[in-house]
């Protein structure tokens, strides 16, 4: 094992260097900027790993941040807007509903069961990191045509994974959508949305504060999950045997998460925490530096204190590990014992691993020795932002996508056409899928899948006269491909119409922008237009965007996916007894057609 370098000193082990930085996804210009952040020296292993993650598209939103700033994020109902772990809207009586959608497209393409399962686990942690109890999950899935064996396999395993996680943790999965279209054949989309309920005054933010306060890591131990990309750092010793030790697949453990959830909520209700944050993509690196950045403080974090699943992990591996089911909190020093006692009660590991400092620097130590030292602001705020170079594809330039599959040989009688439509993959009943989800746990589901256009959830915790919320998730890649602006507007309107059908007024919107490579001018144009449509539609509906996620570079061997914004909405209805439903209820009722 190599000795830990003293950052900046002359006897450091050679810095990994620019070629490794490029292999990790930084550009040469970005590498120069990283050196500037470090006062002119090159980053060591730990620092390079951390910068390359935090300056990645995924964490820094380098190509989308400027666009996202144009979205409407304010309104009377907004309790928490974008920037926190999830957004939240006021549902009256001092209560708020937190919600967010997130993608797990790539992990699901690699290992659909675990990829989809950990996608659900991740979005649930975002919700309870705010102090909200998760009350529902929805999923939005896209695969290639079901004639492909691979698409059927991905569908089958992704649905099983979502069910496994949601069912085991006791959060109902109440709605979603599944679409089969060729552009998703080699790049499936697995987006999951979660909702949670909290008393507004009990919600907590993620900003670390209070010099001398203690950083406690709790939940699962840290292993080599998800280190895949960063493993080029260790390539000096990397032979085939080591490679197999660095599985890139993260395995979810919903049982651990259910304990983590109860433990987190009890820590908050006991008033023991200053801040709370989940560990998601980029693990400790992103959780800790974002907490520090939001609180405008520094952190000292000792990786030697982190409980490990494998003893011989390098500091950089500990910092970038994406092991699931972990949370990071900040508490006052005299509360540490009480925090650890609650962890013990819920049978989760809890360990003090660092403290808040006034230095504004993120110092990584191992057993007291400094192995990385970076400015927090540089890590979190200084990643370069790029302007898109949008260009509308020229008319007549040929289709960017394979022609959609036509329904073969439609019969010419109405009955036959109806049967053909109902048995086509994109219209057929989803019952075999949603029956794999527990849609009723928590005793609040007023409208289950198939009973209405939106799921309806009764907020029974709110006591007498408790209202219900309605929620729906929708996307329509093909229409957005045909016209990114109007396609996205239609997408938002569909979601709102689903809420209207059960009698709910929209309060807020979340979204996941699944697009191809934004460095391509036509994709940049699709993205720009879609975001413009999203903003306009949400403004028109008074349903501001309170959170969301961006997933770019969705291109497979078969080309780019359709531009696929996925929109999730939450609305409120005062009287759950009056929630609308699908289906003609009684003989003799009149049938009316409304709309245009």
């Amino acid at each position: 094992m190599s000795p830990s370098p003293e950052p900046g000193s002359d006897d450091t082990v050679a810095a990994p260097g620019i070629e490794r930085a490029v292999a990790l996804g930084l550009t040469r210009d970005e590498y120069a900027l990283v050196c500037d952040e470090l006062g002119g020296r090159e980053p060591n292993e730990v620092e390079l790993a951390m910068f390359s993650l935090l300056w990645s598209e995924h964490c820094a939103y380098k190509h989308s941040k400027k666009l996202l700033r144009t979205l409407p994020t304010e309104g009377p109902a907004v309790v928490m807007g974008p920037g926190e772990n999830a957004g939240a809207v006021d549902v009256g009586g001092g209560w708020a509903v937190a919600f967010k959608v997130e993608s797990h497209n790539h992990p699901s393409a690699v290992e659909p069961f675990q990829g989809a399962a950990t996608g659900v686990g991740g979005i649930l942690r975002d919700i309870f990191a705010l102090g909200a109890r998760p009350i529902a999950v929805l999923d939005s899935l896209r695969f290639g045509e079901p004639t492909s064996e691979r698409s059927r396999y991905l569908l089958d395993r992704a649905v099983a994974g979502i069910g496994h996680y949601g069912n085991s943790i006791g959060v109902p999965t109440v709605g979603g959508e599944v679409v089969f279209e060729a552009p998703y054949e080699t790049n499936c989309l697995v987006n999951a949305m979660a909702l949670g309920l909290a008393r507004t005054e009990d919600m907590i933010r993620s900003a670390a504060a209070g010099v001398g306060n203690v950083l406690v890591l709790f939940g699962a131990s840290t292993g080599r999950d998800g280190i895949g990309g960063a493993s080029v750092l260790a390539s000096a010793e990397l032979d085939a045997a080591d490679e197999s030790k660095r599985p890139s697949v993260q395995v979810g453990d919903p049982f651990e998460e259910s304990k983590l959830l109860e433990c987190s909520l009890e820590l908050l209700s006991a008033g023991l925490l200053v801040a709370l944050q989940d560990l998601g993509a980029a693990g400790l690196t992103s959780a800790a530096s974002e907490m520090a950045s939001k609180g405008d403080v520094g952190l000292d974090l000792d990786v030697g204190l982190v409980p490990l699943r494998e003893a011989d992990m390098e500091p950089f591996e500990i910092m970038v590990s994406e092991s699931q089911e972990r949370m990071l909190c900040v508490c006052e020093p005299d509360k540490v014992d009480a925090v650890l006692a609650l962890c013990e009660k819920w049978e989760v590991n809890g360990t003090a691993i660092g403290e808040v400092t006034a230095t504004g620097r993120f110092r990584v130590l191992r057993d007291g020795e400094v192995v990385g030292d970076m400015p927090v602001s540089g890590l979190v705020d200084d990643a370069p932002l790029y302007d898109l170079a949008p260009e509308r594809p020229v008319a007549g330039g040929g289709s960017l996508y394979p022609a959609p599959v036509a329904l073969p040989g439609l019969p010419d009688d109405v009955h036959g056409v109806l049967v053909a439509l109902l048995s086509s993959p994109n219209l057929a009943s989803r019952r075999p899928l949603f029956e794999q989800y527990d849609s009723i746990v928590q005793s609040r589901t007023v409208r289950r899948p198939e009973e209405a256009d939106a799921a309806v959830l009764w907020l029974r915790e709110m006591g007498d006269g408790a209202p219900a919320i309605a929620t729906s998730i929708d996307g329509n890649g093909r229409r957005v491909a045909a016209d990114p602006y109007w396609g996205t507007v239609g997408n938002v309107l569909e979601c709102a119409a689903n809420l209207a059908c059960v009698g709910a007024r929209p309060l807020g919107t979340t979204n996941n922008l699944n697009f191809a490579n934004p460095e391509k001018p036509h994709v940049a144009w699709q993205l720009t237009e879609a975001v413009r449509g999203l903003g306009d539609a949400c403004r028109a509906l008074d349903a501001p965007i309170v959170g969301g996620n961006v997933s770019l570079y969705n291109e497979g061997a078969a080309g780019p996916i359709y531009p696929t914004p996925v929109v999730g909405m939450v609305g409120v209805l005062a009287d759950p007894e009056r929630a609308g439903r699908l289906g003609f209820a009684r003989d003799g009722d009149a049938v009316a057609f409304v709309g245009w």
Partner: protein
Amino acid sequence: MKLGVVTFPGTCDDADARIAAGMVAEAVPLWHRDADLRGVDGIIVPGGFSYGDYLRAGAIARFSPVMESVVAFARDGGPVLGICNGFQILCEAGLLPGALLPNTGLRFVCRQVDLVVQTTATPFTSTCTVGQVLSIPAKHTTGRYFGEVAPEQVVLRYAHGHNFNGSQDDIAGVVNAAGNVMGLMPHPEHAVETLTGGSADGLALFEGMTRVAVA
């Protein structure tokens, strides 16, 4: 009248069971590490995924301190109702005959099913009639009943066409020989109010439970 509802790590239908119990009695939470039954008159072992259902559903939970007390309580004739994971735990603990195996379809299924009452000679079904059909949701991956059980111990069967898990002789719920311990795979606590339940048919089992508990 107090009905205790047990919570293990990983239990997830405990809050629902407390809501149901609260409609007929005072619901008292019982914690798995705590052998004290807090003076309850009846016990519900609810559904969910105790200990993640790792190894075998119910296998680990049955060794908790609270289960030692539950076993003693049951042997003394106290009414105990195991729902879904709770049924699996009671079988593993030897309080009920048989075992639950993976559904023949190997998948988790969440579905409203019809159950036919086979006997009213148990407290749990004492308010029902023989042949009565109860509409109650079921949701599980491991619910295929298998075991040697006397016909009079079969309390509920799936109605024709509703046995999705492959249970032997359509068995959905059984009692012990003494008649005071019942287990069933479907979830009566998710059928106690029409707003969220689709039906309120499940309430009968909880009401029945309180009748003996008084005695």
